[in-house]
């Protein structure tokens, strides 16, 4: 956005045109906002309505069955235990996001700070593998998980988080702009061990980048469906996306309680929405920062 505003080029005619353009822009923005929010609005309204109310007809006004639906969704044991799925999702996403952020920073630090043989080649290697979709190696991944005896455990969803090429790339960009070598050299003069320098001095300086990536990685893992659905068999270990997929497949056979279905969706997305409302500024800026300049 330009800071200097040139008024010499403005005549009465162009000013009127600008005003019209501005009004049209706000209308467009309003439309897009509505488009983005309307599904959530319907979701919230519908999660307050009982099954019979939902069958009876459409409304935009909330009803009174919110806590009834909440209780039903929370206590339903027919296919899975919702609080359990919530907890499973949380444990996996928390551990995976911590590993992703920490080890991506560590790898980026290693590449940035040290000179060693093969460094450029390894850096290019990471850039190349960044584009490979994870689904492509799924066949081999599943076999490997079987060989390691990790089927139906959380490990295959947590450990691979250590190697996240795109997060590494983001960290590398950030470190280049915000971690002066002088700081590290000063620590060396003070006799600090290299690993300690990274943990005590460098990591705190990378806090803004770490927190953005922590959130992104958490959300990515929280929302992930493909790999967990392949690896987790028993319903007690299911994560939220698998649970929602199961809810979807049940709707075909029996109508079920739609109030409960809306509540389950609501409960699955609300943690992310709440966190997002608090940190949205960092996230929106983080996306722009991570955008490959070019």
């Amino acid at each position, binding site marked *: 956005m330009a800071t200097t505003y040139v008024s*010499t080029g403005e005549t009465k005619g162009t000013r009127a045109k600008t005003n019209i*353009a*501005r009004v049209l*822009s706000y209308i*467009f*923005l309003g439309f*897009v*906002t509505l*488009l*983005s929010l309307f599904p959530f609005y319907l979701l919230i309204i*519908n999660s307050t309505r009982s099954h019979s109310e*939902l069958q009876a*007809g*459409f409304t935009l006004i909330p009803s009174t069955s919110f806590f009834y639906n909440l209780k039903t969704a929370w206590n339903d044991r027919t296919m899975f235990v919702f609080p359990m799925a919530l907890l499973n999702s949380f444990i996996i996403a928390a551990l995976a996001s911590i590993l992703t952020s920490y080890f991506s920073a*560590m*790898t980026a630090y*290693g*590449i940035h*700070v*040290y000179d*060693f043989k093969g*460094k450029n080649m*390894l850096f290019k290697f990471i850039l190349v*593998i960044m*584009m490979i*979709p994870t*689904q492509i*190696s*799924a*066949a*081999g991944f*599943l*076999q490997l998980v079987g060989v390691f005896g990790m089927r139906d455990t959380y490990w295959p969803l947590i450990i*691979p988080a250590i*190697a996240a090429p795109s997060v590494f790339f983001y960290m590398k960009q950030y470190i280049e702009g915000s971690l002066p070598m002088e700081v590290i050299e000063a620590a060396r003069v003070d006799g600090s061990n*290299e*690993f300690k320098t990274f943990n005590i001095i460098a990591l705190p300086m990378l806090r803004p980048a770490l927190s953005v990536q922590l959130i992104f990685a958490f959300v990515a893992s929280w929302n992930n*469906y493909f790999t967990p659905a392949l690896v987790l068999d028993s319903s007690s270990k299911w994560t939220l*996306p698998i649970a*929602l*997929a199961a809810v*979807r*497949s049940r*709707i*075909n056979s029996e109508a079920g309680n739609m109030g409960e*279905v*809306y509540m389950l*969706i609501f409960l*699955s*997305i609300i943690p992310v*929405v709440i966190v*997002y409302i608090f940190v*949205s500024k960092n*996230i*929106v800026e983080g996306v*722009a920062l991570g*955008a*490959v*300049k*070019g």
Partner: protein
Amino acid sequence: MTKKHKSISYAKWGYFFIAPFFIVYIVFQLIPLLSTFYYSFFDYYRSGLKVIGPEFVGFKNYATLFTPDSNGQIGFLTYFGNTMIMWIIGAVPQLVFSLLLSVIYTSYRLKIKGQRFFKTVMYMPNLIMASAYSLLFFTLLSNVGPINQIIMSATGSTFDFLGQVWPARTVIAFINFIMWFGNTTILLMAGIMGIDQSIFEAASIDGASAGQVFFKITLPLLMPILVYVAITSLIGGLQMFDVPQIMTSGNGSPNRSTMTLIMYLNNYFGTSKNYGMAGALSVIIFVITAILSFIVFKTMNSPDKGKKKSKKARG
């Protein structure tokens, strides 16, 4: 002298710092990738409780992928086509919307207020679980859902969104559109803000209209980023899975018209555990992605260096 000595002794720390990443990558991604490719040349699947193979069969799995089934359809091509169709229906409006939004946000003439709010709202769908979105739209658009209740009261009959080929594809594309346009907008905005602002000011002094500025300055200078965004979106589109999978409960209804490539791949991991066929399909998706990525690298690397120079030439 001492400096040189130092840098040698520190080198081993470099390996120490990058070791976890590479060990985990090699074990959990590179070896699986290579073994996926390796088994694509084998008969290797489960029939009932019996495991068949692995037995080397050369390119048989690849040939099978391109052999018409009993309906005369070549599965791979059909699903590739479905994936591309749904990507295009979603991506084209997405690019248009995002381009328009990014121009509105960055316009120094319009000076839009409340940008924080608008951007926050528009990025939010990107963070919502695709499975939640799919289930939500499935329930909202079902024949007894709220949208059809509105249509019913207005027209007297319901509209079967998910039981017809094109409406079902459009719904899936729409969800992808809603989820990704905020992200695309931010990327394009970053691109526009990277353009030298003095060009816009000069154009304004010369009395250029908003349309002229957009078509003669913004669009040409934004082209490399636009290409980058379009191709990464295409790579993402090839991986389309969650939304159609959950929306149609994995069967790609109606009549497999919403079945994507990755859904097809996923089916091989079901009861048949057909690692041979899954491998062959993975290799082909890999090759397509590799070609696209190569184009991304080209557009990313070359114009970045040439951008400053070409700016004057083109502007």
